[in-house]
């Protein structure tokens, strides 16, 4: 600094003003950098979390429900068709084939979106293996039903298939719980916590305060009513604040998604119970026909399973799954902000430089 070595009083006073201007400008630029870093970090953190939830966890959870429903429906169709079909043209039926194919596709969807890592992959592999066994048992039942003398064996194979299906559905429950646990972690992640805004809000508030301070300083020192460039920089700061606060809304959406999934769960449980009860009722009729005397214990169990317990479904939504996906999409739908934030920050930098340039030029010339 050349002015510090100048002993003359007027030059010292002029250099102090220039120094204050430089410090103020530097403070604004550094704070802008911090504000941008804070805003981007938080926003990208929330965006990544919301994106992972919207594109992986939530679709995986919903696909597990779809798999369960397809399997229950397939089983009910197989029992219905085999019990009522003829010995030649019988068989588990087209609806069974369609639902089994659907279950396979939903399971593929779960695998594609699996958020539960190796544990989830292992569960999916196990479920796929057991599905092969399950369809084998239905095939066995079909073969038995085609022999009029072996219908009891057909009914027994259906009961075995039903028991294995319960195992598969329990494994799907476990898989869903693993995916839900990942969603919970995503919703409760640091980026979406209440304290997170402090990380980006504080630098922005400091930046705003510095801009107001600079405006006041320039106004007092140079008797200008308003520095237009700094005013625009202040507006851009407010813009950054507004955009980054969208992350708060995304966090709120994610929290709501978790509640939506509970509503889907309640709705799906009711559907699954109804389909399971239908299959159990028909199977009980078959067992009663084939083993009227000595199967009281088995029949008591099937009769119990065939009685549905009505459950209250939460919420009024007609299609809770569509609502859940839409909300998850909204939580993850603000990617453009990540591009606008640096533009605004760059604008602030340019405006700050532009706002200070005339005064520094003025004092630079006087100082020299």
């Amino acid at each position, binding site marked *: 600094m050349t002015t510090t070595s100048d002993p003359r009083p007027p030059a010292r006073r002029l250099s102090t003003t220039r120094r204050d201007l430089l410090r103020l400008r530097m403070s604004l630029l550094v704070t802008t950098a911090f504000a941008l870093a804070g805003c981007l970090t938080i926003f990208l953190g929330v965006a990544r979390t919301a994106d992972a939830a919207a594109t992986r966890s939530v679709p995986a959870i919903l696909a597990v429900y779809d798999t369960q429903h397809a399997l229950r429906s397939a089983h009910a169709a197989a029992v219905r068709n085999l019990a009522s079909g003829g010995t030649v043209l019988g068989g588990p039926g087209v609806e069974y084939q369609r639902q089994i194919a659907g279950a396979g596709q939903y399971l593929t969807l779960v695998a594609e979106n699996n958020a539960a890592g190796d544990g989830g992959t292992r569960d999916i592999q196990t479920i796929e293996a057991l599905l092969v066994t399950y369809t084998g048992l239905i095939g066995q039942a079909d073969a038995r039903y085609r022999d009029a003398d072996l219908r009891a064996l057909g009914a027994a194979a259906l009961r075995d298939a039903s028991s294995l299906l319960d*195992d598969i559905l329990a494994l799907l429950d476990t898989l869903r719980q693993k995916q839900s646990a990942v969603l919970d972690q995503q919703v409760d992640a640091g980026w979406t916590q209440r304290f997170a805004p402090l990380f980006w809000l504080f630098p922005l508030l400091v930046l705003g305060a510095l801009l107001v301070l600079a405006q006041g300083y320039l106004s007092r020192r140079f008797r200008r009513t308003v520095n237009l460039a700094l005013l625009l920089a202040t507006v851009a700061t407010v813009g950054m604040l507004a955009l980054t606060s969208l992350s708060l809304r995304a966090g709120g959406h994610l929290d709501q998604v978790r509640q939506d999934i509970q509503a889907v769960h309640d709705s799906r449980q009711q559907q699954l119970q109804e389909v399971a009860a239908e299959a159990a009722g028909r199977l009980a009729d078959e067992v009663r026909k084939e083993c009227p005397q000595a199967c009281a214990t088995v029949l008591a169990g099937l009769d119990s399973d065939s009685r549905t317990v009505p459950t209250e479904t939460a919420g009024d939504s007609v299609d809770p799954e569509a609502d859940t996906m839409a909300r998850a999409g909204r939580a993850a739908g603000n990617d453009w902000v990540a591009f606008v934030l640096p533009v605004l920050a760059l604008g602030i930098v340019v405006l700050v430089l532009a706002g200070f340039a005339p005064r520094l030029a003025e004092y630079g010339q006087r100082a020299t």
Partner: protein
Amino acid sequence: MTQRRRTAGIALVLVTALLAGTGLTGCLGGEPGGRVTVLGSWTGAEEAAFRAVLDRFEADTGIRADYQGHRDVSQVLQAGIERQRPPDVAIVPRLNDLQRYVNEEALRPLDDIVERTDPGAGPQLIRIAGKTAPDDEAQVYGVAVATHLKSVFWYAPARLAELGHPQPPKTWDELVALGSDNRVSWCLGMSSPPVSGWPGTDWIEDILLHQSGQQAYEQWTRGDLAWRSAPVRNAWRAWAELLGTAASQDTARASLFSTWVEAGAGLFASPPGCHLDHQGSFVVRSYRSLPNVAPGGFDFFPMPPIGSAETASLQEVSDDVAAMFQDTEPARKLMAYLASERAQQIWRESSGGLFFTRRGQVGTPTDPVIAKISARLGAGTLCRDASDLLPAAMATAFERAVLVYLQRPERLDALLTELDGVAAAVPDAEWMDLGCDPAAPPTERQGT
């Protein structure tokens, strides 16, 4: 300026230390000893007992053991191998699965892991030759970690005594006479998805072993004895004669819809649902879980010799066999541990004494029924469950034939012809020649 630089230097050092510390903590919080995945067939209480064994392994080695249990372990294992994602270690109830995977070179040999380090594990080791290797080049590919006694009939002594049978039968004729008492009924449960019918195959195997002897049994299990041969046909007929299925279609029909657990519970129902249960020693766990089953409320007697055969010392057993599919250090350590006496002692404790092994039994258990099972596993000749040895296609056909036979005994000839057809279609490399081995004598050390 110097002060400012010093402050910046200190801050830099602190931040670096903080980051390094965080990284180090992250590393330490991981899995220092590695990880091993284990697939088995145990669920429920059996899984809990096995997990206690794995917990001790984890505590001793720092290796994390991830266990997954399912009743259709064969299918799950096959899917894992087909997708190139097998578990590190699998414990399979069907021995023939190992033969298939040795043929496919999917299994890793265990000779230097168990055989050379633990001589006491000898009776548990299973040597298998690949499809192209001669028999004398067989290697250790499996360790029988748990063994179950099968050639026994369970009964409630008080219930039989009430019917005028204070002593269990000692000969086949006495057993047939007991079964023909109209008040005495059999506990029959064939349902056991996904392999329903195996309780019936146990009957046929046990009868064949005690009617035609070890040689015929071993010929049959390695595919050298036709299903339509006299020893096999006689075993099926003897079973029908004993059960009286032709006369009692209700019992046979009900067995198709009952699991072996449900059927066995009939021993203790009031009034009794049945009086005699042909089942493996693992059934004790389900008996114990029933309400109102007092200690001493049940006992067993062995399958008697049939006819003039000297077969009293032969006993059918089944094994749960551990095998290694990924040759990693954690998997090697787990295999050595599972074969060890230490692991088996922990297993015995965690299962309430309901754990048996081919290794010489240690001490004398206090429970008289468990002591009797241990004594039988330590004497005579132990013959492996035939349907565990048979190739998968053969075993499945056998299980299905049993179910059809129970419903339509008059179709026996057609069933045996079909079974011979299946046997002819099975490649030679899939048959096993393991048959029977002498039991390891018990050791003197005091057990629990």
